[in-house]
């Protein structure tokens, strides 16, 4: 029987992101960096809620969003598991989301007045930092 994978994550109150969004972001990041692998079982809704001292409905909402986006899959009566990676979104949707994310990023960064080269270089370094773990 597969064992539940510990979910080492922190949430913060007082953050502009709601708690359910913080959970979604953290789980996505862990899957993207292979800290969570396909087939790993996630903590139960109640278990994670207790671990974080938050309302179980908040965790349920985050899990529902992750499942709808294809990051997690539920197995009847067994719980939630990290799904086998597949392209979860249509090309058009991927492209739309990338545009959106870039727009958000630009809005934040533009007023900081860094030269574009430096911003790109730093972004590139962050990507490289993620890459090795992904191929592990």
């Amino acid at each position, binding site marked *: 029987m597969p064992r539940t994978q510990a979910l080492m994550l922190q949430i913060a*109150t*007082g953050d502009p992101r709601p708690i*359910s969004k913080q959970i979604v972001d953290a789980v996505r990041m862990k899957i993207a960096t292979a800290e969570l692998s396909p087939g790993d079982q996630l903590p139960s809704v109640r278990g994670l*809620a207790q671990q974080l001292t938050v*309302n179980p409905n908040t965790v349920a909402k985050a899990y529902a969003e992750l499942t709808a986006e294809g990051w997690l899959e539920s197995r009847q009566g067994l719980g939630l598991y990290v799904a086998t990676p597949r392209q979860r979104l249509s090309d058009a949707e991927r492209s739309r989301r990338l545009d959106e994310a870039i727009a958000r990023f630009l809005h934040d960064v533009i007023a900081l007045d860094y030269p574009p080269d430096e911003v790109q270089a730093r972004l590139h370094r962050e990507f490289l930092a993620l890459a090795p773990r992904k191929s592990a």
Partner: protein
Amino acid sequence: MNDYVIETDALTKRYGRKLALDHLDLRIPRGRIHALVGANGAGKSTLFRILLGFLPPTAGSARILGRDSQRLTPEDRGRIGFVNEEHTLPGWMRVNAVTDMHRRQYPRWNEEAFRNVLGHYHVLPEQKVGQLSRGERAGFNLALALAQGPELLVLDEPTLGLDVVAKRAFLESLMYSNATDDCTVIYCSHQMEEIERVADNLVILERGRLMHMSAPDEFCARVTHWVADIPFKGPDPRSVPGLLQLQRLDGLHHYLVLDQQDDFAEFLRASGARSVQSMPVSLDRAVNGFLAKNHATPDAQRAQA
């Protein structure tokens, strides 16, 4: 069927010249945890007193669990649990005597729930209530209220003055005890950190009126923080759309605004802003800004008519 645990129609309560509740129309649906927020004097305590039948309204009506709050029977009251900030229990009675009394009083008494909640605290059966610490009394009070098997649990500032451990134990009992599975919880608190963790629904009262009701994150999304670099004097505050709070810090204008989209940037630029930035805010900041708008202040300039 309209299944509301609390339903008020134009509920009004006047104390002399002061309106504590001002034609309040409030409908709280059954199920989940509802956080009730408001500045001091927003009318929360008056609302509870009327709902529990301790106080008659000046006008309007209030129903609780479908019953007229002015005509509650003992059976109706058995369906409602109430925990207030003072954790009022008879100080001269021993813990086991109080417990026996409640056990006899409430037909739906749930001994397991009682033990599960009280197990978080070092409360001995032979102790007098008056000898318990504030946190122990809070735990004991919550254990009694949950064991009663209420359909509706009203908590008025339940964690006020509790230490961090007692507070956590209290929240855990509230959120993870089986006893609350079929229970609607009304949670009154000024502590946004707690509300963020526990609330499914956020209800904001101000000066006896309902100002907002939605999931907490939806409320948060209504409020944004803008920073504009405006040389010289900024626009007249009265002309700023949706303004909640205005601060001038280091020559920059900080605006906390409600329900403003990207065109707010246009407004600021038209008012002479050289640069404009915006960011989302935390629930704490959003609620704070919202309540601060009409909060009493000695500064006549900021007072609203």
